[in-house]
Every structure is written in structure tokens, then in C-alpha cells.
């Protein structure tokens, strides 16, 4: 049996900032193993973003705990948590992923610099990652000079740069047209298959859902369905 990378236990989140408390996530148990390619789906407001943020250590659960590869991150001190994210989790957001004043290369390299990777390894890995996401030769472009799809591919490359335990992607294709979206999914799938990288992404897009091998459906903050849909990978 594969290694457990994410273990969410009795996870709940209630927002109390508004006039009425909102239970965004209710008592969620989620167990994700290394090498999974898993989609989080559900209607708008069902709690996908909230759940992903808690798993990624960006948001604190009201109840329950999140264990990442054996480390309980619930209640971790902020700076420690930032460092934990840097070393263990890759993020791809819906948009504005990249630092506009840095080139594609620099955006990727930046993460490794923060990790303290030495120069030769950084340079080599940047080129390798750009190649993997099909952007060789685009390294010195600023984000504003890249298309939306290209930007998201750089974001994926950046997420992988830190050699994370898994990549969280909250609606990574929401701003992309379907061809570009398919292209991004191809790359993610390839990285999943070839390097065994774990991907957890949320989406509304049925064509993206199709590509997942495990689909978790959230409704009103609760897991309604959790099913394996495609043939599992045989290594």
C-alpha cells in the first residue's frame, strides 16, 4: 500500500465573520496517498476551496486535524507553517500565480532560492522543469508576455520546483479555454505518471473531471461521494 501523504481527520470549518455562521466544511475525512490524481468537485460554495486551503496549511480548521506525511500541521506557528509549505506543498492558484516582475525562469528559481538550493542545481532544474511543461525557450519572458495557459504551466513548474510531497491546485483551469485546459491537464497527468507526483485539484469543468482517477464530491461542506473512476495506474 502506498504512503499516505494527506490525512484529514474530522475536518470542519465554520466561518463566524459574517452575520450568520457558515459551516463551509463539515466533519470531512480524507485520506490521500502518494501518486494519486484526485479531483475535488461540487457546486459553487460547497467548500472545495476551504478544504484545499486547510489541507495546504493556508487556513486553520475549526475542528479536526490535518496530517501531512506524518506531520500534524494543525496549530503550527505561522512562520513555521510558511516554511513547511515551502518545503512540502506545491500550489497552483486560479490566477495571479506568478510574480509579474520576475521572468518565468526567475519565478521558478525563486522557490529554490528560498529553499537554499545551490546555483548549479537551480539552473539545471529550472531548464528541466520548463522543458517538462513545454516552455523551453520561454524562460526569459515576463508573465505579461505569456498567454494564460503558458502562465499556468509556469505555475505548475514553480509548484514542482520545491520537490513537494503533493501539488494543490484550486481551479487551475478556470481561466483557460478548453484546449488550453486540456493541455495543462496533459502536463499534470504526465508528471503524475512519470514522476509519481500527487495532484489534488478542484474543478467545475466536466472535461477536467473526466481525467481524474479519483473524484471526491462535496455538497454543503460534506463529502457526498468518493469514487475511483478510471483504471488505476499500473507501474
Amino acid at each position, binding site marked *: 500500500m502506498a504512503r499516505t501523504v494527506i490525512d484529514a481527520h474530522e475536518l470542519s470549518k465554520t466561518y463566524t465573520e459574517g452575520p450568520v455562521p457558515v459551516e463551509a466544511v463539515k466533519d470531512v475525512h480524507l485520506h490521500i496517498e502518494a501518486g494519486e490524481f484526485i479531483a475535488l468537485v461540487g457546486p459553487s460554495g460547497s467548500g472545495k476551496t476551504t478544504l484545499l486551503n486547510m489541507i495546504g496549511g493556508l487556513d486553520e480548521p475549526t475542528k479536526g486535524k490535518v496530517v501531512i506525511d506524518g506531520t500534524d500541521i494543525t496549530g503550527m506557528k505561522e512562520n513555521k507553517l510558511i516554511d513547511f509549505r515551502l518545503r512540502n506543498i506545491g500550489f497552483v492558484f486560479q490566477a495571479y500565480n506568478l510574480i509579474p516582475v520576475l521572468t518565468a525562469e526567475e519565478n521558478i528559481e525563486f522557490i529554490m532560492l*528560498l529553499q537554499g538550493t545551490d546555483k548549479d542545481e537551480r539552473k539545471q532544474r529550472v531548464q528541466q522543469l520548463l522543458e517538462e511543461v513545454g516552455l523551453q525557450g520561454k524562460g526569459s519572458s515576463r508573465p505579461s508576455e505569456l498567454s494564460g495557459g503558458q502562465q499556468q504551466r509556469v505555475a505548475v513548474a514553480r509548484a514542482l520546483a520545491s520537490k513537494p510531497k503533493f501539488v494543490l491546485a484550486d481551479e487551475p483551469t478556470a481561466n483557460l479555454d478548453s484546449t488550453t485546459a486540456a493541455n495543462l491537464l496533459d502536463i499534470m497527468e504526465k508528471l503524475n505518471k512519470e514522476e509519481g507526483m500527487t495532484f489534488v485539484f478542484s474543478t467545475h469543468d466536466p472535461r477536467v473531471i473526466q481525467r481524474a482517477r479519483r473524484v471526491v464530491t462535496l455538497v454543503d461542506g460534506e463529502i457526498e461521494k468518493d469514487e475511483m473512476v478510471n483504471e488505476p495506474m499500473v507501474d
Partner: protein
Amino acid sequence: MMILKIAWRNIWRNRTRSLVLILSIVLGMWAGAFIMAFYWGMSKQQVDDTIQQNLSHIQFHHPDFRENFEAKYTIADGDQVVADLQQDKEVKAYSERVVCMAMAASASKSTGVTLYGIVPEQEDALTGLKEKLIAGDYFTGKKNEVVVGNKLAEKLHLDVRKKIVCTFQDEQGEIVSVALRVSGIFKTRNSRLEEGMIYMQQTDLSALLGTGNGIHEIAVLLADDQQVDAVTDQWKQDFPADDVESWKELSPELRLIVESFNQYMFIIIGIILLALLFGIINTMLMAILERTKELGVLMSVGLNKTKVFIMILLETVFIALVGGPLGLLLAWCTVQLTHSSGIDLSMYSKGLEEFGYASIVYPELGMSSYFSILIMVVAAALIASVFPAMRALKLKPVEAIRKI
């Protein structure tokens, strides 16, 4: 480091806004430094003039003489002092003076003056008195001749060859009245100095006072004005019977001008920087507000709080480091330019001369002052960045990300 790169490039994202801020720093520093240079030029000239024309660097007196200027208080070991001064390599020039307070009266008016009994060559070597003459001659050798300041001449309606009657007490305390003849009139840049001064031959005045060879004052100019304090201290030890005082002790007002300059500078530059501070804070706050999402992403992917803080700090300091030196460079150029030509204030200078300021100002500012100002600019930028940086730290990545 990449943070440095990001901070630097961030400045140029909103070019106009950054340029406006940089320009305001440039102008502020230019104006501030120039005002200080102007003020220092003016003060320094006053100090230099007073030293050059009147006080010199160091003076010797009988310890009681300066209390009420009685003729009997001559310097006890005057000959010894003069003999030493002649040997001393630090000494550029010196003048022995017999000094006496007097009432001077012309046909129409009278006023209080100081009579200086001098050896003409000595005094000329010390103060360049001869060159300052605008009328008449510098002592022709006749008895009871005087050289008077232009201001005094105007006041008493004197002219060359005219007579002036001076009344004073001699060594015994007897009142002496004597008619003196004007042989020359001198003019200085600083009219306050010339107003109350009358020079006459030392032999004449000594005879009138009955002080024989006695000297009341020895004024000394040193070759190097940096040595004044050291030499004064040395001479205080060497001549314990006399009062040996540097110009700073002789004229506390002048000393105050010189010593309070730095305080004035901190105050004036401080006020300018305070105004700039708000501009910097405002601009940086705007910049951070615009970048909420980006900062959220940065913190999400692993930029810790210290680094976010440093990034914003650097950004502010960079702006100051572009604007500050540019403004100071501009100020330096302006100062160099106006220093050689001088700024003529004679249009408004009636009042200035009265107060002992010259009518042409030569702005001047030492390198260390420019440096202090630059440090102040950077310090101000650091202070200004703290508030926006704290603001950035308060950002929660989740909330910033939510806005995407």
C-alpha cells in the same frame, strides 16, 4: 538575492508614481542641502571676517583687563610672550595692541569707541588693514594720526584730515582729552566691526595713557586654524600669568553659530524629511494594497514574514537611495556654482551688514554634512517603510488568495 531584484523591479512597476516620489525627495534634499550651504556660507564668512579683521585666533590679556578695560592692566610678561611667538612655527602673524575705551567726538556728534594703539606693520600683517583703506593714507608718521572705520566716519561726519577729539582715562585714572587727525578711512565687509574702532600709533597712545612699554592685548593668527584649540591649551600652560583665550572664548556668539550649525541642520532637514515621510508612507501603502494578491501568493508558496518585511523595506530604501543622492548631487553642483560666484544680496543687504553679515554670500557645505543628510534620508525611508511593511505582514494569505 532575488528579494533585492523583486524590490528593485517593483519600484518601476508604477513608474510615474515612483518618479513623482523620487522627484519630491530630490527636490527636498536639494532645497534642504542648499539652504544649509547658504546658511553655513553666511555664518562661516561672519566667523572668518571677525577672526580675520578683529579677534584673530588667540589673544593674550592681563587676567583683569577684559573686566573693565583699565589701562593699568598690561600684560605682565608681554616681552616674553612676543619673544616666544617670534620663534613659534605655528604663528602666522601677531599684533601687540594698547587698548583703551574712549568717547570720540567730532564737531557735530559723539560716540563710544575703542582706541587701538598698534604697530602699523604688525597690524597690517595680521588683519590686512592697509588694503582696506578707501581714503587717505595708512599712517604717514605724523603725531596723533588715526585710521577710522567708514561706518564711524559716516556717523561722525568725518573725512580725511578732519579732527576728532577722544576722551579717556589714563593709567592714573585721570581724564585725558586729545585731538586726533584722521589720516585714513577703512572699510570692511562687516560694518559692525568698523563702527567702533579707531587705530592709532602705539607710541602715541602709550604716551597719552602713561603705560610706557606696556601692552594690553596680543592677537595671534595661526597658520592652521585646526590647531587653535591645541595651541591655546599649550599656551595656557606656558603663560599661566596671562589670560590666553581662543576666538571661541573671546566671542561666545561666534562659537554658538559654529557649534549649533549641526543642530540647525538636523532640524531643517528633519522637517523636510517629515513632510516627505508621509509621501513615502502613502505611496508604499498604495503599492502594497495593489499587490495584495501577489503578496498572498508569495506568502502561500513560502516567503516568510521576515522576508516580506525586508522586501518592502528595501523597496522604500531604494527609492530613497535613488532620490537622496540625486538631490544631494544637484545641491552640490548648485553650491559649487554659487560658491565661486557668490550670491549678491546687496539689494536686501542693508540689514545684513548691520548684523555683521556680508552682503555677498558664498554657499559652502562640508562633505560630512552631505553624508549626514544622506544617512538621514535613508533613516527616514526605513522609518517610513515600517508602517506599510507591518500592514503587509497583517495580510493573511487565505484572504489575499480568496480575492483571486
